[in-house]
């Protein structure tokens, strides 16, 4: 999937004393099956940009083209629809729902999608096999180790078979071993033909060999792009 951002800005609390220009006129093109890194210090606007790319929030101005169609001004429910079909999110803290099982956590994105229970189960089992957590299917997430939780979080991001996987500081709370493990899984995701966008300032991630492009951000603008 190709995503094109044209002159995108994001302003929080416009017109108020605490107005923040988080993204300032960013233009960007993300091609199919690319692994793109958004790199930059804290507060540089990575998360804001990532959530615009992932159709989670709308830019204050500018155009966001998903496969050639401008989605920047779509009503929320259509944005949700696109997000539901095309995007998978991996959060900084795994953000799994406590109190329910691994399987249920992974199934959640499919509930409002209108697919049948059989289909939901089939896809859930598929991603659980892929990430080797089937043996934990009926455990509650708080009974799992950090590494396993990470796999569950990735499985949940993949269950709707998205074209693009977005991750915000995925390794911030992981040790080196788990971070490497994470990169290995990202390379598998890339191998499956998906686009990956990662916001991070962890050298281990942006210096990895599977990264196609690194986009360097500061104060809401793109400083430079590198390989």
């Amino acid at each position, binding site marked *: 999937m190709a995503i094109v951002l044209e002159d995108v800005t994001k302003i929080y609390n416009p017109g108020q004393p605490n107005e923040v220009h988080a993204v300032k006129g960013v233009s960007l093109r993300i091609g199919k099956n690319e692994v793109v890194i958004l790199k930059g210090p804290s507060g540089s606007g990575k998360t804001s940009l990532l959530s615009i790319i992932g159709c989670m929030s709308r830019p204050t101005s500018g155009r966001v083209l998903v496969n050639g169609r401008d989605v920047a001004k779509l009503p929320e*429910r259509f944005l*949700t629809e696109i997000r539901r079909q095309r995007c998978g999110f991996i959060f900084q803290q795994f953000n799994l729902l*406590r109190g329910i099982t691994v399987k249920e956590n992974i199934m959640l994105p499919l509930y409002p999608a209108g697919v*049948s229970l059989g289909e939901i189960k089939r896809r859930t089992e598929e991603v659980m096999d892929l990430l080797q957590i089937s043996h934990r299917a009926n455990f509650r997430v708080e009974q799992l180790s950090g590494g396993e939780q990470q796999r569950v979080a990735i499985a949940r991001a993949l269950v709707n078979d998205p074209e693009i996987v977005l991750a915000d500081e995925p390794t911030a709370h992981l040790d080196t071993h788990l971070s490497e493990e994470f990169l290995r899984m990202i390379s598998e995701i890339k191998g499956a033909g998906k686009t990956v966008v990662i916001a991070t300032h962890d050298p281990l991630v942006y210096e990895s060999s599977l990264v196609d492009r690194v986009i360097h951000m500061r104060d809401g603008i793109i400083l430079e792009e590198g390989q």
Partner: protein
Amino acid sequence: MRRHLFILEFALSGLCRRRYKNLALLVAYSLLIFIISSILFLTHALKREAELLLQSSPEITVQRLMAGRHALVPVDWVDTIVSIPGVIDASPRYWGYYYDPFTGANFTVLGVRSSEFPLKGREDLDPEDCLIGSGVSETGLLRTGDSLVMVDPEGIARPFRVAGVFSTSSSILTNDLVVLKEETIKRFFQIPEGYAVDLVVRVANPSEIDTIAKKIKEKIPSSRPITRTEILRTYESLFDWRSGMVLSMFIGALLAFFIFAWDKATGLSAEERREIGVLKAIGWDSSDIMEMKFWEGLVLSSLAYLTGTITGFVHVFMLGAPLLESALKGWSVLFPSLKLRPVIEVYQLMVLLFLTVVPYMAATIAPSWKAAMTDPEEVIRS
């Protein structure tokens, strides 16, 4: 269609996960429905009892007004009334209230002639015999064969042998009743010869009742004819009014509850906010979240409604509404174990729905919208 079921299922699992928070709400909600359903069921059952009671009562009762109060009726009015076309017959009635100083209860004492004698298997009531209602039997600990002692106007205690007790299942009609022979009651209350407490009139054609009542009033200006439907109407408005009053007294409680519900719905825990944010980030729409919240409310309401109505039913029809006795029945101190006939109509259930579930759902609309508007960006940022 499927997605609604999945969202419902997830709403249920959410309720279970937050069971302590929801349990408090459920208990308060059920209690409220319990109270209101008890009021509605009891009123309705009492109205029903009154209706049944009046079915067997005379079409017209004639009283006499003297100085604006009702006084004893001369028995010779009977002849005047019987001469009105359409009247089958008229007969004097002897009855009164008796305050029992021993138990502090009020009895209704009624005189009967042998012809209308209600005891089966026996020809006649002896002058010293009485029949009592189950209420009287219970307060005085009396059984068949014991004696009921009543003090007459001169202060002389007179014993009456209990010849029978009306069964518990019969209604308000017999509960506080003491039946004596007509001559006995006349003597006991010292009713002067030629006078009765009131007259009852039987009418051939029910549609003529009102006309005949008017004619009686014309012929005997000091009389006060009361028709059966008039009494029924008075009873019904009395009950409606009472239950309306009691309901209004509970308005405070109702409001307090809905504010509580509002508060519960608004005060999302940090955990819950995070969950909603996560759900939205992974592809749930705000309307899906609102639907989830709607299901939560509906499930809670249904549970509370079921619990509340069932306990209300048990309270009113099996336990005799001990908690509402004084508030609603109110006309007599004596109401020990009146068993009401279980009658429930769709109407009562619908009124109950409007008084409880409708405001509850209304109170939770805005908070669940607020919750659904949680920004998913917040989640990835934290």
